[in-house]
């Protein structure tokens, strides 16, 4: 916490206060001095009047004596009046008042009362002597004995002649008055001396005070200046001042940045360090004092161009500065970060291609341009064929490498001006602007060729293809969403056409695509409406033809569509996540049915109800829970239940594969049977099979179909059967449709068989009849829905 005393306040008004204090001090001292001068001058004027009157007393006393003598000798005079002047003046000198003016002489004089002890004593003595004088004079005029006049001033003149006595009294009066006037003059001199001393002291004190305040003001100003200098020099901000003739000031931060002395930067020297493209902007700004913010580049000591964000302040009207001030900050790192964030926001982190947002932005811009120019453009959507299998079997790292490799190849197959983006997963998009349909197809061919080139991943040489949907926009206004959706439809059409194809969007494709979307909505409703049910296809022991199990197969009997084949809705269910509740439904229904058959005595301990588990269910990690719920709900023992999983569902690397294996192992330990479905179609290493809790291998129908006439299929089937037996597993051939196939697998030692030859998938009621018989006869009825 900052202490108040140390608060930095460079903008406070201390300077103004100091100047005001100086002025107040000068004014106060001057006022005191003037006041004292006036007072002293007034005193001097008063004392001058006093001195004048005091000096006049001598003349009046002598005049009085002369008039007494003159009147005594018969002359005519008015000594009484003169005596009155003398005593009244003496009285006025002592206690203040009007001293009378002598006839024909001067004016009346206003006198102040005297306060000095010595002066008052002298003037009192003078007054007494004046009274003694006039009393003696009156006695002489009235011919009374002068000795009868009482004397009041201490004089001892009784022995003197009356006239001498009168003259002595006059001399004493005059002398006393003279001495009193001297004392008054001396006091006046002392007063003036005191005034001079006081004024000198006041002047010195005022001067010292003002000097102190001035020094304080100078010190404060210096501190303030130092503060601002420190602010400018210590600041990391770059401060530049431009005026006529170019740069006039460069702060220390600027000097340190370019590592040149300030003199080299002044004038036009700074231009050497400013990016040539920004020099015009800088000069214009410094010439006009605007805009308020600019960004320009300067080269630092290492030769790097640094981005400077400058705040421009026009101080050309400021008399102290007369220039344009730039407070600049190095924002290079911030701009790089912003660029990086922008790049991350609009680029795919894995492939560094544009992401969906950027692609969409570019597409919107291209469409806006096309609206103006009517130039054609094309959008290509690409989906890698076989990527999922690579990802599932070789792991996500391999999948990521594949995506990066393919992205590089795609980038080499398009023009730099085209936008290549990864929209997510294995889906890419290309915006060709401008491009005709023919050019778009040519690009699609190049892309497919690039994708198809062999690629080594995890020490395997792989080759992927791409299904490419093309939408060619002839030019003019269009909606970006529509173009992407149409390209998506075309891409699905390309997928349907087989690996490595491309299709140009046609409007009849939209109808088919719309069909798929509608199917998803109806499937969701079907789950809630109970339109789904299970059919069961028996599995037969080859030698005895005994039914040893059934495979539960999901069927959708739609109210509007009739019987919807699994190949139509299972992919949709997997894509939308509906496969999870559907899987729970199948497990629960199958266990319920098996429990029912078991309670009816239709099956024994060797019977297994096989339920297909999808990779998504395993990946979700909820198979164990679902099995537990189904078994506990139905009371079915675990050994009556079997789970069929595909190779690709259980062999992926990483946590998903590990979790799937652990879950299956746990179920297997509790007695649940595990079978590998469609064996031979995956990429799994055979060696990995020994690590899985497997009871049975199902030979894929693609091999079984040719087993009786294709040597390769027969060889593959034979090897799978041999492998199963070597691992102590049961082998079952699915898709047996003919006696020849049956004979072939029997010859190869296959343990079990399943197919239309024996029974197509049937509702539980019909299967119940088969179970009641205990065996199954060949059945020629084919049902494509069993796929």
């Amino acid at each position, binding site marked *: 916490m900052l202490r108040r005393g140390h608060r930095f306040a460079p903008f406070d008004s201390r300077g103004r206060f100091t100047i005001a204090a100086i002025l107040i001090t000068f004014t106060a001292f001057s006022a005191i001095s003037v006041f004292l001068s006036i007072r002293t001058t007034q005193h001097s004027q008063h004392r001058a009047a006093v001195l004048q009157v005091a000096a006049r007393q001598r003349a009046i006393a002598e005049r009085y004596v002369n008039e007494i003598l003159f009147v005594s000798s018969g002359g005519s005079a008015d000594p009484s009046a003169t005596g009155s002047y003398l005593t009244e003046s003496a009285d006025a000198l002592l206690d203040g008042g009007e001293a009378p003016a002598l006839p024909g002489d001067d004016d009346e004089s206003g006198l102040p009362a005297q306060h000095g002890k*010595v002066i008052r*004593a*002298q003037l*009192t*003595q003078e007054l007494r002597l004046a009274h003694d004088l006039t009393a003696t004079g009156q006695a002489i005029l009235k011919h009374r004995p002068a000795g009868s006049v009482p004397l009041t*001033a*201490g*004089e*001892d*003149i009784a022995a*003197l002649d009356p006239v*001498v006595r009168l*003259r*002595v*009294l*006059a*001399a*004493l009066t*005059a*002398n*006393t008055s003279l*001495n009193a006037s*001297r*004392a008054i003059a001396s006091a006046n001199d002392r007063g003036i001396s005191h005034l001079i001393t006081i004024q000198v002291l006041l002047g010195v004190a005022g001067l010292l005070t003002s000097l102190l305040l001035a020094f304080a003001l100078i010190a404060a100003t210096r501190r303030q200046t130092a503060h601002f200098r420190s602010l400018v020099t210590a600041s990391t901000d770059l401060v530049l001042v431009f005026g006529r003739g170019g740069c006039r000031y460069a702060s220390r931060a600027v000097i340190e940045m370019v590592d040149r002395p300030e003199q080299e930067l002044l004038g036009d020297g700074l231009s050497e360090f400013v990016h040539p493209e920004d020099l015009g902007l800088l000069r214009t700004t410094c010439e006009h004092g605007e805009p308020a913010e600019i960004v320009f580049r300067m080269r630092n000591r290492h030769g790097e161009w640094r981005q400077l964000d400058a705040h421009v302040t026009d101080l050309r009207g400021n008399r102290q500065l007369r220039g344009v001030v730039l407070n600049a900050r190095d924002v290079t790192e911030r701009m790089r970060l912003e660029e990086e964030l922008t790049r991350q926001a609009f680029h795919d982190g894995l492939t560094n291609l544009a992401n969906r947002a950027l692609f969409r932005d570019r597409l919107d811009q291209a469409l806006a341009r096309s609206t103006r120019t009517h130039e054609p453009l094309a959008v290509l959507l690409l989906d890698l064929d076989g990527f999922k299998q690579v990802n599932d079997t070789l792991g996500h790292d391999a999948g990521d490498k594949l995506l990066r490799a393919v992205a590089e190849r795609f980038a080499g197959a398009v023009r730099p001006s085209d936008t290549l983006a990864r929209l997510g997963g294995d889906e890419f998009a290309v915006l060709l602007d401008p491009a005709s349909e023919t050019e778009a197809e040519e690009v699609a061919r190049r892309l497919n060729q690039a994708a198809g080139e062999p690629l080594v991943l995890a020490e395997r040489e792989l080759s992927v293809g791409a299904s490419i949907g093309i939408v060619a926009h002839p030019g003019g206004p269009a909606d970006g969403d529509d173009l992407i959706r149409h390209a998506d439809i075309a891409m699905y059409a390309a997928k349907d056409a087989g690996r490595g194809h491309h299709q140009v969007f046609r409007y009849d494709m939209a109808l088919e695509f719309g069909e798929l979307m509608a199917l998803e909505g109806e499937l969701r409703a079907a789950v809630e409406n109970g339109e789904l049910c299970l059919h069961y296809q028996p599995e037969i022991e080859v030698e005895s033809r005994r039914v040893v199990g059934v495979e539960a197969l999901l069927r959708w009997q739609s109210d509007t569509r009739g019987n919807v084949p699994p190949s139509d809705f299972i992919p949709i269910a997997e894509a939308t996540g509906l496969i999870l509740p559907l899987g729970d439904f199948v497990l629960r229904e199958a266990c319920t049915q098996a429990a029912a058959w078991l309670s009816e005595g239709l099956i024994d301990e060797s019977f297994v109800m096989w339920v297909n588990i999808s990779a998504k269910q395993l990946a979700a990690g909820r198979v164990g829970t679902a099995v537990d719920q189904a078994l506990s709900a139905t009371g079915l023992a675990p050994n009556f239940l079997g789970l069929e999983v595909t190779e690709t569902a259980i062999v992926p690397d990483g946590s998903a594969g590990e979790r799937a294996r652990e879950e299956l192992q746990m179920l297997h330990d509790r007695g649940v049977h595990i079978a590998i479905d469609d064996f031979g179609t995956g990429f799994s290493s055979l060696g990995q099979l020994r690590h899985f809790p497997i009871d049975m291998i199902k030979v894929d129908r693609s091999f079984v179909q040719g087993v009786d006439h294709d040597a390769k299929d027969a060889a593959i089937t034979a090897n799978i059967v041999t492998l199963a037996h070597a691992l102590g597993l049961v082998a079952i051939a699915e898709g047996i449709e003919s006696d020849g196939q049956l004979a072939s697998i029997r010859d190869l030692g296959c343990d079990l068989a399943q197919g239309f030859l024996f029974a197509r998938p049937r509702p539980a009621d019909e299967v119940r009849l088969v179970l009641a018989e205990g065996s199954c006869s060949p059945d020629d009825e084919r049902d494509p829905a069993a796929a």
Partner: protein
Amino acid sequence: MLLAVLVPLVGGCSSSGNKPSGTVAPIVERDFKIRAQRYELPAGKVDLSVKNDGPDAHELIVVRETDSSLPMRKDGLTVDEDAIQKQTQGALEPGQPGGERHLKLHLAPGRYLLLCNMSGHYLGGMHAELVVS
């Protein structure tokens, strides 16, 4: 202890330094009289300590008396100091009231007149006789 030692030393020095070189004769002047504590003094060195009690300024002149009276100036109010210059033993210029001055003289046996010769003061009564024996 130190103070006790110093005080007698200081006192001794002061006493020795201020020791009057002759007879000290306090004189008081006041309008319009001259008063002496002692009017008879031994001959020799005399220190007249003259205090002016005012209210007027006064001077002091010491004149050896002769058989004749003091001559007056033409104004008839002041003694003719030039005429008695030979008789004059010493003088103090006019002193302001409240002040004290010293007039050191070497007086032979005889009679001396102390007077203030400011205008009218002598005739007004400011004189006294001093006998030195």
